């Protein structure tokens, strides 16, 4: 909403010297932010001049050399406009003038002195959309009687100042100068002036010849009046300039009046060429598929959720959004039917979103004050009478089921002070309501506030408290910390612990988008789920919610590879989403991707391999307390995107909670390893408290053993056999060497270092040797192993 200071001053007095920035800041303080506060024409050092002489520039085919009288001197100016000629009065920008696009300097143009610029209106800051064809293409020619040496902005009555206010969604009342006047009046404690509404009327009552029908609950108020014998012409300057200041292009007096009243009162009006309308106007819902050609010449196909205006036979306008082409006001229009109505804001919003957002629809969407609808109608006919020579036909035809009653809300000063944390007195409170022009009545400690219907945003006590806070000044309220019983705050630090663990393992944390392409959503998993697609994605690249984080991290890897980073070790904790049966849900997942070098250093470089990412997985599981409860097992079903020989499911207490493996070489030539753990699944498994275990004071004994066995036997299998055979004196067994060779053929040698110990005594060979024999026997028997000597 653009506030025009000149326009505003019609309704409320403001200090002549009040700076526009100050006004804007004061409005901001009470809750109305602004984008811009400046002069309508911000150009400086402009003066009216008369072109005394205009000759062609000797070295140019389009420039002219002019002598321009600006009162106290005659300037030499080189001008490129086609329409410049001797004898006209023009707008001159003197040296030092700051125009929107350029600062004027004295200079030489192709050898000729030029000490200023003759301006077009668009060069001083008027948007071309407001200008006539002539003004769009050349300098502005002022009337004969324009006073040389004076300020052209003042002369053109464009000496206005504007504020572009950003309104909050609830303050539809401020989409009018009148509403802004109440706001400004409350700030500076000035009363709002009345609008002139009186006008004459004549002839037969319109009710006798015209019907208003409303056949939908989506219209609560419809008023029709007729203005006869209008003269269509240019609007007076003040109307044109104010519309321009408010960002609306002037067209002709009749159309301009409908816009002027809308800006003034906030009530959009619609003017029909009455002679093309007939004797009936009806508001109803559109039939599905009904056609209507709107003002902009586009044929629209309507839906049964659109409200339309019809002449009883066919649609002639989209209520609150756009009129129809057939009944538009034209140069030849004689008689005007005026519509002032209130339509359902939600319906108008839906329709306008589909068709076009306009000044009118914006106001309908925010909701209207029905009392203002009546006022706007009277204002419109008054202006038509005055500026379009109209005769107003007696009577108005009205359909009205709107609630026009003023709300009464009870409030206590204590309520206000409790909620705001202030110490505002009864007098101060009443003073705020008086400034807002709300009527009050005090009974004991209860104030009954009568809220004017223009303030549709106020319906409960808290709304009134906000008003008091606003006008009293929220920045006058001193902040304090709540006095509440002390209590422990709680935060689950598991994610943080995992993050710190991953960081200590050398991984960089990423933060990726959860929206991915649908073709990636089932990758890297065999889990059954239905993907969740967006109804209306912004791009097809991101049309589905991810299930696994691996596609996200793989994209990040590709991005980094393309940006010259080969060593990528990254992780992320984030959500994966799914639908199963009718249930929708999300799981928190830990995902890691590793490729390139892991150890750095002169002689100790190490590329990431399966065992490194397995180590990362184990570190996390051990750290979270799942030591000895997990295993890495071959997936039951092929995981297509993984290297079939380097992939494992992570099994904790018999449940698969994650996967690790190398990405299939067909997807990535580089060795890229990934890990994903479903943290929700994992952390649901309870972990005991960390507890001290007694340390043995007796020495441990080490024994090495090497066996030759089938290549396909896994390390896990060998470990299990050793552990089972060894019993509880075995403290640890570590595989320290795996060896294959041509001589061994399809066999391999595996060497283990076994540590034995006891909490109660020093072990002797007599105790250990039989255990070693048992181990060897078990390995021979269960795994057909052969002791290597």
């Amino acid at each position, binding site marked *: 909403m653009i506030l025009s200071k000149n326009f505003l001053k019609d309704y409320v007095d403001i200090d002549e010297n009040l700076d526009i920035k100050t006004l804007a800041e004061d409005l901001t303080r009470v809750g109305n932010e602004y984008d811009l506060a400046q002069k309508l024409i911000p150009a400086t050092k402009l003066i009216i001049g008369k072109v005394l002489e205009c000759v062609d520039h000797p070295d140019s085919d389009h420039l002219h050399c002019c002598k321009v009288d600006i009162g106290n001197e005659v300037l030499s100016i080189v001008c490129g406009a086609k329409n410049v000629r001797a004898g006209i009065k023009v707008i001159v920008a003197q040296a030092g003038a700051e125009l929107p696009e350029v600062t004027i300097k004295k200079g030489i143009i192709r050898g000729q002195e030029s000490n200023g610029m003759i301006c077009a209106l668009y060069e001083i800051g008027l948007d071309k959309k407001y200008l006539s064809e002539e003004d769009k293409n050349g300098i502005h020619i002022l009337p004969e009687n324009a006073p040389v040496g004076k300020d052209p902005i003042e002369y053109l009555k464009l000496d206005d100042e504007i504020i572009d206010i950003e309104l*909050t969604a*609830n*303050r539809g009342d401020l989409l009018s100068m009148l509403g802004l006047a109440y706001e400004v009046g409350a700030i500076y404690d000035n009363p709002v002036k009345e609008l002139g509404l009186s006008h004459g009327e004549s002839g037969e009552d319109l009710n006798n010849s015209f019907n208003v029908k409303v056949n939908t609950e989506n219209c609560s108020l419809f008023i029709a009046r007729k203005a006869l014998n209008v003269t269509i012409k240019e609007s007076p300057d003040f109307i044109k300039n104010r519309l321009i200041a408010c960002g609306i292009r002037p067209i002709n007096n009749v159309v301009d009046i409908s816009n002027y009243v809308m800006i003034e009162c906030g009530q959009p009006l619609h003017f029909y060429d009455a002679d093309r309308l007939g004797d009936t106007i009806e508001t109803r819902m559109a039939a599905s598929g009904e056609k209507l050609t709107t003002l902009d010449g586009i044929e629209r196909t309507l839906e049964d959720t659109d409200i339309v205006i019809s002449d009883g036979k066919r649609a002639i306008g989209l209520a609150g959004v756009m009129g129809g082409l057939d009944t538009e006001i034209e140069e030849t229009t004689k008689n005007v039917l005026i519509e002032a109505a209130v339509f359902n804001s*939600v319906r108008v*919003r839906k329709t306008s979103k589909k068709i076009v957002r306009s000044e009118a629809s914006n106001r309908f*969407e925010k909701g209207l004050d029905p009392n203002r609808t009546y006022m706007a109608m009277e204002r419109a006919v008054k202006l038509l009478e005055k500026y379009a020579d109209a005769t107003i036909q007696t009577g108005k035809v009205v359909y009205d089921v709107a609630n026009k009653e003023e709300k009464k809300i009870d409030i206590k000063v204590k309520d206000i002070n*409790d*909620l*705001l*944390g*202030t110490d505002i007195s009864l007098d101060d409170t009443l003073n705020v309501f008086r400034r807002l022009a709300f009527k009050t009545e005090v009974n004991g400690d209860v104030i009954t506030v009568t809220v004017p219907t223009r303030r549709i945003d106020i319906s*409960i*006590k808290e709304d009134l*408290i*906000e008003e008091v*806070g*606003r006008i009293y000044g*929220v920045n006058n*309220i001193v*902040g*304090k*910390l*709540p*006095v509440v019983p*002390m209590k*422990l*705050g*709680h*935060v689950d630090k598991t994610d*943080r612990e995992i*993050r710190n663990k991953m*960081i200590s*393992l050398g*991984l*960089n*944390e990423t*933060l*990726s*988008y*959860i*929206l991915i392409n649908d073709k990636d959503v089932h990758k890297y998993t065999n889990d059954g789920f239905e993907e969740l697609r*967006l*109804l*209306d*994605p912004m791009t097809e690249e*991101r049309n589905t*919610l991810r299930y696994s984080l691996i596609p996200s991290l793989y994209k990040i890897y590709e*991005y*980094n590879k393309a*940006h010259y*980073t080969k060593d990528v*070790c*990254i992780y992320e904790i*984030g*959500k994966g989403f799914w639908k199963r049966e009718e249930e929708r849900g*999300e799981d928190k997942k830990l995902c890691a991707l590793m490729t390139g070098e892991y*150890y*750095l*250093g*002169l002689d100790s470089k190490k590329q990431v391999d399966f065992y490194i990412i397995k180590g990362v997985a184990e570190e996390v599981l051990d750290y979270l307390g799942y030591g000895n409860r997990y295993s890495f097992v071959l997936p039951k079903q092929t995981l297509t995107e993984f290297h079939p020989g380097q992939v494992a499911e992570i099994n904790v207490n018999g449940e698969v909670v994650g996967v690790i493996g190398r990405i299939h070489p067909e997807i990535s030539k580089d060795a890229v390893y990934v890990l994903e753990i479903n943290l929700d699944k994992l952390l649901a498994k309870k972990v005991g408290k960390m507890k001290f275990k007694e340390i043995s004071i007796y020495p441990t004994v080490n024994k090495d053993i090497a066996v030759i066995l089938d290549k396909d036997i896994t390390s896990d299998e060998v470990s299990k056999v050793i552990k089972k055979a060894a019993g509880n004196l075995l403290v640890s067994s570590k595989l320290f060497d795996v060896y294959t060779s041509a001589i061994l053929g399809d066999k391999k040698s595996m060497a283990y270092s076994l540590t034995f110990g006891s909490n109660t005594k020093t072990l002797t060979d007599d105790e250990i040797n039989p255990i070693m024999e048992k181990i060897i026997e078990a390995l021979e028997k269960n795994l057909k192993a052969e002791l290597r000597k």
Partner: protein
Amino acid sequence: MKEKIEEIRKNAKDMIDEIVDLQELQELKVKLLGKKSELSSLLKGLGAVAQEERPKVGAWVNEARKEIEEKISEAEKIFKEKAMAAKLESEKIDITAPSTKIIRGSKHPINRVIEEIQDIFVSMGYDVVDGPELETDEFCFERLNLPQGHPARDMQDSFYITDEYLLRTQTSAVQARTMLANEEKSPIRMICTGKTYRREDDATHSHQFNQVEGLVIDYKDRNTSLADLKGTLEVFMKKMLGPNTELRFRPSYFPFTEPSYEVDVTCFKCGGKGCPLCKKTGWIELLGSGMVHPRVLEMNGYDPEKYSGFAFGTGIDRLAMFKYGITDMRYLYANDVRFLSQFDRQDKE
């Protein structure tokens, strides 16, 4: 006899002096002092010496032996020192050469800020709660006083999955969940941090971003007022942005609070002098806040006659950008390792 011993002693000394390494010295030691050495044979042959001479000769021999032993041990010490010195010299390395280490990990700046915010509020007795990112319309809008068709829904175009389900547009959705879950309707002090989603993508908006939401509900007679909200946000912002940060409250409109305020903070780039970032106003709009709307309390089981409270929320991405001087929002989601790896150390308080 004495001369002989003297000669052995002298020869031994000469021989020791000529030795060049520890190995030779060990051999010489055997030769001079071993069972087959001259001194040993002298002692063995002591029987042939006259009875009265024996103690004297024995003493001479032992004396000589002791002397040789000392001499050898001295030489031994020198050789060992030399050997150690040589060994150390040979093991000398370039201590300025690169160390061996595992690559260094880093924490994403967004999560750093989230953790910092959590710590601030936990220290004030707030609970950190979590909520779903895939929300229902009910919790994201309806229960926050945003019924179907409400104009404020336009403010946040959303990613819907079905008519009912959408990606949460705000962490406020957790407010209703927390209130409903509290069966005893006891006071609430909570924050929620996390991802939120809106249908917009441009240089300053990402369709996925992060918010923190705070909610305090208490008995009305404890006066949980706007002044308390102001005080709380002052503490929060001064801790995050520095002690000189000022706050400016502007009345505004959110459907879930009444009254509602937007909160501006002193521009963190220019300190309030005015710069392009703050559009020369000296202020940056950073938070939304207000007193919980009685309808919201009521809809979620708290009697607005008995309880009141305040709520606030802010975007974390901008806080992170300010804190680390990140110049473009897109860095936060590009996940360029050259960006991520910069956040690899303890941050100074």
